[in-house]
């Protein structure tokens, strides 16, 4: 097939960028930066969607790009920033597993998810199917982020970037889910965020910190 | 059933009644001789009983009716036992009513009433005696049962007359199993009749006595009945021994009136010999501590069991 069209190359670049960002988040300890990275990821996602929409001429994708822009680039980061300011949690304490180790695990996960993606890409009919592996990787890396963080805030951001991964996966594999589903998903994410906001303040007023160590009282055999 | 059988039956019971005290007297006499004492007259036991019957009965204020019924029950059971045991003839009209196991049951009944009566007044001696009696009983009874069981295995029935008839009429074989059981039976007999080395009928030392301790609260005719019953018991045991181990001389079912006539002296001879032997054993052996009694009886029990094993092994 030879030289693939420039758009596709661009798309793949964007996908790689997503992965890079996930790694960055994995490595990042400053929560404020984490939020920016998350916003950036949303942006990249949005860009990729738009690109794809332009290439396929599928206006559903435009809509979902708009959705991404609205929710993941503007709304959520704005909410998060406000919270950070209100709760002044700027730094996460050291992650449970030190950064290089985390990175190493992350690499392994990437390998695993690429392997996992083979059959799926083989099946998918989209131009971007090769990116599915990256989507899986993003999801699992987000998972890893959540595992290694100690602050509730950074855990949530990990959760949200997992949503990004899912979204990217859906887009790259099938040019997006049916509209109704996407709307539902977006709505859920937004609500989730609001709920979390409430939570943070409640936790804060109870524990006057967002350290997860405080949240380990429930044990099996007390 | 022939009239002669009824005659045998009646004769046996009457004989038991008449001879039992005499037998006890005979044993005591032999003992006295062996111990170089002047022996009491042969009918001493009759005298004692007669004397007791002439006295006023004194009963403890807090004695219950059970206390007063017990002597009669014990006496009656011994009498019934005498009716079951083929001491003269093996064709007894009463024998189908109760086999050897029932006989053991009879002795158990007597023992139980004796013990309960002893506990009734609530004296320390009474309960002590009852406890020791039962302690002896819980090993003596199974031992006796095993002895009978072996004989039953040999003759494949538990009806005592049938057993003794089979043993008598069968070809004369020395069966080692019977030797074991014979020893066991002797030990049981000693224990059950309050003889040395388990109990000493001649003493009233609380540390040692068993049978006497139970009778302490009895007097007059109740005591007489109890003494009589114990004499009967000794007699019965002796007769069981004869039936199992020296069954010869008793009138078998085939035999006629002459056999019965011959059976009476035969029984007399057996009793004389047995009494002497008993006395000999008693004088030869020393009183055991009460705690040793279970071991003595356990030995008896095991001998009986061994006898059975030997029988099953050799089929003899």
């Amino acid at each position, binding site marked *: 097939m030879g030289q693939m069209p420039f758009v596709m190359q661009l798309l793949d670049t964007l996908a790689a960028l997503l992965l890079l960002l996930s790694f960055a988040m994995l490595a990042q300890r400053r929560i404020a930066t984490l939020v920016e990275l998350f916003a950036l990821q949303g942006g990249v996602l949005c860009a990729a969607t738009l690109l794809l929409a332009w290439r396929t001429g599928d206006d559903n994708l435009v809509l979902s790009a708009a959705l991404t822009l609205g929710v993941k680039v503007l709304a959520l980061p704005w909410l998060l920033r406000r919270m950070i300011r209100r709760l002044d949690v700027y730094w996460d304490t050291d992650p449970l597993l030190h950064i290089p180790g985390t990175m190493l695990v992350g690499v392994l996960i990437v390998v695993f998810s690429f392997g*996992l993606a083979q*059959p*799926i890409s083989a*099946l*998918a*009919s989209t131009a971007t199917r090769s990116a599915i592996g990256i989507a*899986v990787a993003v*999801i699992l890396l987000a*998972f890893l982020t*959540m595992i290694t963080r100690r602050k*509730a805030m950074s*855990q949530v951001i990990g*959760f949200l970037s*997992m*949503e990004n991964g*899912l979204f990217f*996966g*859906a887009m790259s*594999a*099938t*040019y997006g*889910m*049916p509209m*109704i*589903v996407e709307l*539902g*998903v977006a*709505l*859920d994410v937004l*609500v*989730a965020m609001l*709920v*979390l906001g*409430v*939570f943070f303040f*409640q*936790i804060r007023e*109870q*524990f006057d910190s967002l350290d997860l160590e*405080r*949240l*380990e*009282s*429930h044990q*099996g*055999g*007390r | 059933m022939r009239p002669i059988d009824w005659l045998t039956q009646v004769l046996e019971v009457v004989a038991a009644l008449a001879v039992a005290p005499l037998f006890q007297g005979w044993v005591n006499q032999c003992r006295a001789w062996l111990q170089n004492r002047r022996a009491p007259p042969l009918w001493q036991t009759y005298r004692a009983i007669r004397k007791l019957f002439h006295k006023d009965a004194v009963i403890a204020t807090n004695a219950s009716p059970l206390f007063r019924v017990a002597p009669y029950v014990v006496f009656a059971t011994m009498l019934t036992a005498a009716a079951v045991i083929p001491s003269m003839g093996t064709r007894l009209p009463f024998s189908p009513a109760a086999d050897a196991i029932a006989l053991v049951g009879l002795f158990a009944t007597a023992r139980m009433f004796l013990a309960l009566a002893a506990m009734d007044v609530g004296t320390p001696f009474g309960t002590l005696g009852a406890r020791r009696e039962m302690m002896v009983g819980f090993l003596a009874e199974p031992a006796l049962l095993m002895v009978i069981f072996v004989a039953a295995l040999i003759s494949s029935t538990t009806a005592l007359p049938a057993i003794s008839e089979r043993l008598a009429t069968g070809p004369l074989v020395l069966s080692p199993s019977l030797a074991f059981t014979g020893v066991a039976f002797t030990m049981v007999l000693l224990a059950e009749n309050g003889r040395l080395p388990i109990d000493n009928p001649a003493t009233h030392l609380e540390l040692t006595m068993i049978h006497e301790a139970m009778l302490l609260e009895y007097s007059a005719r109740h005591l007489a009945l109890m003494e009589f019953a114990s004499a009967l018991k000794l007699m019965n045991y002796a007769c069981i021994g004869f039936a199992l181990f020296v069954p010869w001389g008793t009138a078998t079912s085939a035999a006629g009136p002459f056999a019965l006539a011959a059976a009476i002296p035969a029984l007399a001879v057996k009793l004389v010999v047995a009494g002497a032997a008993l006395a000999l054993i008693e004088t030869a052996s020393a009183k055991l501590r009460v705690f040793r009694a279970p071991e003595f009886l356990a030995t008896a029990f095991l001998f009986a069991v061994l006898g059975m094993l030997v029988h099953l092994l050799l089929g003899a």
Partner: protein
Amino acid sequence: MDLFALLVTPLAGAFVLAWIGAGRRAPEVNAAFSLGTFAAACALSWRVATHGEATFANAQFFVDPFNAFLVALTAFVGLTTSLFSRPYMRIEAADRRVTPGGLRLYHAMYQLFIGTMLLALTTNNLGLMWVAMEAATLSTVLLVSLYRTPAALEAGWKYFILCGVGIAQALFGTILLYIAAERVLGAQGVGALLWTHLDAVKGELEPRVLSIAFVFLLVGYGTKTGLVPLHNWLPDAHAEGPTPISAVLSGLLLNVAIYAVVRCKVLVEGSLHSAWPGRMLIGFGLVSVTVASFSLWRQRDIKRLFAFSSIEHMGLVAFAFGMGGPVANFAALLHMTVHSLTKSAIFFAAGHAAQKSGSQSIDRIRGLATVSPTVGWGLMIGALAILGVPPFGVFASEFLILTTAMRDHPWATPILLLSFAVAFAAIFARVQSMVFGDTTLRRLPHSPALLPVFVHLGLVLMLGLFIPPFLATWYGAAARLIGGGG
């Protein structure tokens, strides 16, 4: 029409109660809306019973015996729970444990929760089902932390994060399913996520992808089902939320989650022509049953205790569905029914018990039978029923499950029996110490409503002695629908 009513009534209720939820009559309003929902559910199930399966709104919604009976069950338990929560929440308010604002939130979210579950049950669109499940989590997460105590917040947080992450896996699974489906049902296939369409073509779906998809779906919805080792949110959430919520979580949400798992299993098994999805469920089931029953041994908190027992029973249901086949499926459906009835009844009684002693600690609850026989005997009988003592329905289903297991997987039977024994020893020791003995408990400001308890237990008793024919045929149809097994 009735479906529309079924879905709209709770939503309307949610809005109304969000507005007057703190009012004096709010509990009655709540009960009234639940009653309406139940009526609609009855109508719907009646239609299914008479006309059989049906789809609505160009196949976006559908009912078949499987979800119809779950709808009826959900609506029924929702109703009884609302009846129970009437005095319960009044007492809580009287004890100043919950603020008026909290009360409003509670009532609104209660209705919303019921609504989302009904949506998840009736929708034909797997994507929509996912949305509804997530919504169900979100609507309860604030209820779990309603009391604002540290423990409650912690529980809520864990509930949120663990279920959220789990659900995310489910979403990816759904996407994969969609990929495979789209291949068969055409690009942007309208029905590419509609279960009925997928079911029709399940034979042609690409096996590899579907197997991967199933793993994600199993992990995702399995988290909400509380399968070990994804269960850790469950005891906390059950223990810390208000008791009516524990009741519906345990009695209904778990059912809905396993319903989702089973729906997916049907598709995957259809495409794979092999039984390993079933085997996966069996594995999860056995692990859950064993771990949960041993964990029971050390519980000190009455609601945690029964939360673990819920894990055990969900494991059993998963095991049964894993075995598949008409009998096992029948048993599983029966078990879902009796479990949600019994468990909610137990939570009702336990809730009042905790209120009486002013603490959920088992050591502080004593002599219930003496101070209030209804609560005490309700708890005692409920516990016996849940422990699978005849003549209650739980025994009926366990009997069927065990006998089927003896046939299909003999090696599993001893494990199950051992777990049952341990669970019995653990739960019964605690229940006995709570129900019997001398008491130090107080009287309550409002008289507890134990009608629901005894209605539930009565039903369970009936199901143990006599399963009505229409119900039997209904289950049978659902069981055939699920199929699987050998």
